[in-house]
């Protein structure tokens, strides 16, 4: 009984200490303490503005079928990697807040509409999203002076894992209500994008 109480106390102390020392994420790059690769790997999951369009695109591709999902699975991380390298190299001062938000709105709306799209169009969207977000990420990294290559590889691996999970799940959807739920998720992403556009416009005003 005494040992149990001791164990409980230790657990609560561990929680208290962890909450007290929990590192807040650094601007635009989370510092995991495990090095740049893992910083990049976790980056996507603490960056809603990066994650939202990826979710929308992965679900959109998955809903269209496994062939679409596979194309986005490989095209998006590669485009992101290329964009990230390019951003760090040639565009250290680049900022395109409205364009990236409009892309998020568009992807959310396409998912909500569940309209049949050709494979080339979905692949082009993946290239556009990957290059745009990659360039912005690379540009941000260049500003902070971080070693960008391993971070970019980490982000690409995170993207690969996220897209494979999301698109795989969406591709395996058979029941009607699940498809509707994914479309509702698309409308939510578009709605979030619209509000973000309002914020961006007000911030710029």
């Amino acid at each position: 009984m005494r040992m149990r109480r001791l164990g409980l106390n230790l657990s609560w102390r561990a929680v208290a200490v962890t909450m007290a020392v929990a590192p807040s994420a650094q601007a635009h790059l989370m510092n995991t303490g495990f090095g740049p690769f893992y910083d990049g790997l976790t980056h996507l999951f603490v960056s809603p503005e990066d994650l939202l369009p990826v979710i929308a695109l992965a679900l959109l591709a998955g809903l269209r079928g496994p062939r679409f999902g596979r194309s986005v699975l490989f095209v998006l991380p590669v485009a992101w990697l290329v964009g990230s390298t390019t951003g760090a190299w040639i565009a250290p001062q680049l900022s395109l807040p409205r364009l990236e938000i409009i892309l998020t709105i568009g992807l959310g709306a396409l998912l909500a509409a569940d309209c049949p799209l050709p494979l080339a169009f979905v692949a082009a969207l993946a290239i556009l999203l990957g290059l745009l977000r990659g360039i912005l990420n690379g540009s941000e990294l260049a500003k902070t002076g971080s070693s960008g290559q391993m971070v970019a590889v980490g982000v690409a691996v995170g993207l690969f894992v996220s897209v494979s999970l999301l698109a795989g799940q969406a591709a395996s959807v058979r029941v009607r209500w699940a498809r509707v739920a994914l479309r509702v998720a698309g409308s939510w992403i578009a709605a979030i994008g619209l509000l973000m556009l309002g914020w961006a416009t007000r911030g710029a005003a």
Partner: protein
Amino acid sequence: MKHFKPDTMRNLCGSGNATRRALLLLLFFLCPLTAFAHKRGGEAIGFMSGFEHPISGLDHILAMVAVGMWGAQLGTPAIWVLPVVFPMVMALGGMMGLMGIRLPGIELCIALSAVALGFAVFREARPKLWIAAIIVGFFAIAHGHAHGTELPAGASGVLYSIGFVIATGLLHATGIAIGLVHRWPAGRVALRIAGAVVAMGGVFFLWKAVSGEAA
């Protein structure tokens, strides 16, 4: 071999059980790590304040729950079309509010939305889908605009927006869940009564809005 304990995690956590470990994990997730991620200059707000905004006013709650109830009453495809239309159009209204675009009679329109949607549920109104979508969309603009003008200043409200939209969606889901009682005869009556209650609530807010404007 008799005293061998293979469960290392159990030993590490003392005599902990699954519940305690789950609690521990939950608390780790509650650490403010994510909330501060990508905090840009001027982002004075977060997920929770966005989540609380739509549920902070009874007039908004009544209208959003009524949308879900009406959708459930109308059946497929309205059951999901209306809750898809509402957040998107509401966000459009919110965007207009954030941009500083002025719209007249917003408070009246919000109060009127609860009256109209509650009355539609009470009367079991069955207009064509596109008409229902336009009615819902029209009121959604007013609700979104009111929220948009109330939002605090900030350069990037991404977490706020996520919380805001999720809360709105959950209110619709609540309305749909309530509306599913429509399948049973007694539930059908109960749903109509609920619609009447929403409409009466709307009349109260309409009276408040009119007296406020008159003052």
